């Protein structure tokens, strides 16, 4: 069971309190109705599924109930960092470049 740092509770909490919520930084377009089929496909169906660093959403569902974002390495299953929903995608990661 992982420990996950909740950016709202400001501490590490056990994974049992959390729920994964898919890839992060996929903003819902403001003009949904006008989207092309191709753009909708990319928006709704296509996910990056990288080997390595992934930006994803989690919800501290059995804690503060907030959705937040996390950077996780899919190879090591280690969290690089977490940050609040709405904050920009971090450009520089702690310990990156290794």
């Amino acid at each position, binding site marked *: 069971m992982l420990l996950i740092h909740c950016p709202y509770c400001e501490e590490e909490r*056990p994974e049992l309190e959390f*729920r994964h919520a898919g890839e992060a930084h996929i903003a819902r377009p403001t003009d*949904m*109705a006008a989207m092309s*089929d191709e753009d*909708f496909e990319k928006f*709704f169906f296509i996910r990056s599924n990288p080997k390595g660093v992934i930006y994803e959403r989690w919800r501290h569902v059995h804690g503060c109930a907030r959705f937040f974002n996390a950077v996780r390495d899919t190879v090591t299953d280690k969290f690089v960092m977490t940050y609040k*929903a709405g904050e920009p995608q971090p450009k520089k990661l702690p310990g990156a470049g290794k």
Partner: protein
Amino acid sequence: MMQSFRIPGAGRLTPAKTMRFTFDGQSFTGVAGDTLASALLANGVHLVGRSFKYHRPRGILSVGAEEPNALVDIERDAARKTPNVRATVQELYDGLAATSQNRWPSLSFDAGAVNDLASPLFSAGFYYKTFMWPKAAWKSFYEPKIRAAAGLGVAPDQPDPDHYSARFAHCEVLVLGGGAAGIAAALAAAETGVRVILCDEQAEFGGALRFEAGAKIDGADGWAWAQTAIAKLSAMDNVRLLPRTTAFGYYAQNFVGLAERLTDHLASPDANAPRERLWQIRAKRVILAAGAIERHMVFADNDRPGVMLASAARAYLNHYGVAIGRNVGVYTANDSAYAAAIDLKKAGVDIAAIVDLRDNPSGPLVEEARALGIEINHGRAVIRTGGRLRISSMSVQPKNGGGERKIAVDALLMSAGWTPSVHLFSQSRGKVAFDEETKRFLPGIYAQDCISVGACNGTDGLAASVEEAYAAGAKAAKDAGGKAAKAAKPKVEASENWSRGMLGAAPGAGPDKIVKAFVDFQNDVTAKDIRLAVHEGMRSIEHVKRFTTNGMATDQGKTSNMHGLAIAADTLDKNIPEVGLTTFRAPYTPVTFGAIVGHARGALFDPTRKTAMHGWAEAHGAVFEDVGQWKRTWYFPKPGEDMHAAVNRECRTVRQSAGLFDASTLGKIEVVGPDAATFMELLYTNPWQKLDAGRCRYGVMLREDGFIYDDGVVGRLAPDRFHVTTTTGGAARVMNHMEDYLQTEFPHLNVWLTSISEQWAVIAVQGPKSRDIIAPLVKGIDLSDEAMPHMSVREGRICGVPTRLFRMSFTGDRGFEVNVPADYGQAVWEALWTEGQKHGACAYGTEAMHVLRAEKGYIIVGQDTDGTVTPADAGLDWAIGKKKTDFVGIRGLTRPDLVAAGRKQLVGLRTNDPKIVLDEGAQIVADPKQAIPMKMIGHVTSSYWSENCGRSIALGLLTDGRARMGETLHVPMPDRTIEVEVTGPVFFDEKGERLNG
């Protein structure tokens, strides 16, 4: 038999505390503190089991958890039968009853031993090669037969009556292993004041000090020092000692699983005490002090009962006071066996000879053995053993060949050296590194905040181990936030050193084809098998392992892995690291399902949710159905009624008079804030801005892909307050879905969501008399059709308590849903029931509810929809706000596939024979005479007998359904084909006049 191998004055047990036990029905005695193994040995019993494949007689190899042979059934009663218990781990209690496994008809005569004679047939990979044809026979014939013949004990056929506990715990320093190193580390860490947990799989802490007779620490005998140290630790508030506790799994971020055995050692366990406890520990730092495991020598017939690891024989002597024989041989490639021989000799046991593979063994232990007059044969090998059910001789030969000499023995000690226990380190994702000089894998690159100390780290000698462990304990505690330590470091004054040894097959292991030199005792894997695997093309050790099953038994190769690897490497003519090491996986030793399940069984397997009116329903004979975790009233049979009769009566009564229905399980969400309507517009297809306060609307919720996700009636209580209902099953996920959009897509909206599912009990009062029933109890609400029309909501009081009263209908008749604070649900229900009785009303359950709504063609999301149904498919496009420019799912609705022709649409289905009720899920075809596989054009989603219609009714999803009205289609069933007519989905009161009737 009277414990004739117990040596007076030897060991640490108290001879007066005798205990009776049985093995295969024969009675024996042992003493308190014995294991089953030590007690059997005290009685001269070495033969304890038959091997897995060849059914060879087997004895006790070890003194601990690594035991591959001595697996027994322990039976307390019919339900408490535990197979595969290692006799070396099972503590003796008075009345213990053990039986041997894997033999028929008896241990000393086992018919399956014919496999041993036929062994050329049973080579490695035998099963893969032989039982291949016919393919179908594998499941029905070969596998069951092989499983029965190669069984590992028999599982009890009754439910486990014991209970199992669980605990999450946190500490700064977790020490795994309570030998000298673990104790030293714990002492250092504990002094700093941080929380320390120290666990060990044995009943008593002390590890190898149990047998290492020469050890001296702080002026005391090693074992005595360990007990003093443990007493000191147990007196400290910040220390938790867990004996009889195995650290079986090391997971991410220093999360370690421990299985604590609480009652298996007791004669009469308290029925309320848990048998085991699963600890899930999160530690800031972990200290691995797992020790090392002695390896056996690989030579012909090295599995005969009486052949044993040297350290085991020494522990049986020094701790349990048991001699493993009277005339003992020793076969070794390192010094530790000398220590055993010396101790035995001093205790009065004859040592027939020490056979040492090394050419010129030297050092204090060798000298001491010589001084005691023990014959030492160096540069020689034991090439085979003699005897049948017990060793009677060993045959010795110079290791490079030559004359053979047979020496009579009744036991044989062996030691090929020590394998550091890197299991948990490896599980922590640490990378082991091969140390060429000492030929062993040691912790290399660490992946977590842990450190290995002592023998598992390859640190040789007690003094160095304790020194290293103490420093590691102090550092771990400091790193985890402890204060500076002030404890005195333990001082090791005397210890032994037994490093080195050999890996792989000794000269007596081949090359003769029928030689059985066992590498893995439990899985009957010989040196020859491993060579064969290599010759047949296996190159990776992972393949060799799977082909031979070396290391795959319940002992997970604790004694065999390194030998197997070395033989494979030798055969491949490669270095050991090039061949690689197999992966260590959890659990370290088998863990019971009970421990894993813990409290989660019986009533605690899953929560059972009951509504506020459950008690009333139960008292009135309701039959319940499970809907998720909820118990819902299914129907209320009167005496003599079956389900059909009850449901028919309930359906009739609701439409004739009225019925009361418990709708409390519906999900309910209060949406509050100035932007509430804007938010509702985004989450539901419907328009909400213009809905007046006090009115309700049926809402449809989509996913972004345009498919129906949920539905429910929504009441607007105030301009900024909505009372939203969801399906019972959708309550939690709809809340999550709404929170997701609110928090991450529409965070600018000033609106908040609160689950009120359980705040309100809901009593649906449906039927023509519904208003008459509630009217006398309601205060402050005008119930007239003008003041409170269909689809409206009012707040007021009923029976003196607050209510949110909805005028709505899921039956098509006039109806109300009475929401009251849940604790008042039962009393309000009772009051309504009393009123209802005056009008001939009934209580009805979910089955009648389903029938009544189906008569009206109202869908149930999840029954008539399946996650691929659009509002248009379900005939609900009227619920889409046509002028809206955005809502979740708006774009999905125009996806090519969702607007294409030929989609399945909701229709009604009438069987030509009105008495036939279709099966839900049955497929619909156009032409029943077509060849199989037929083209299926739809399926039945809901189907009931409708008492009110006097016929069966059904709903279905049908390709181009609305264009097929009036067509006759076919539902092929196993016994017949049923003709159906496609109709609209409304079967009753098509004009909807009864809503105000």
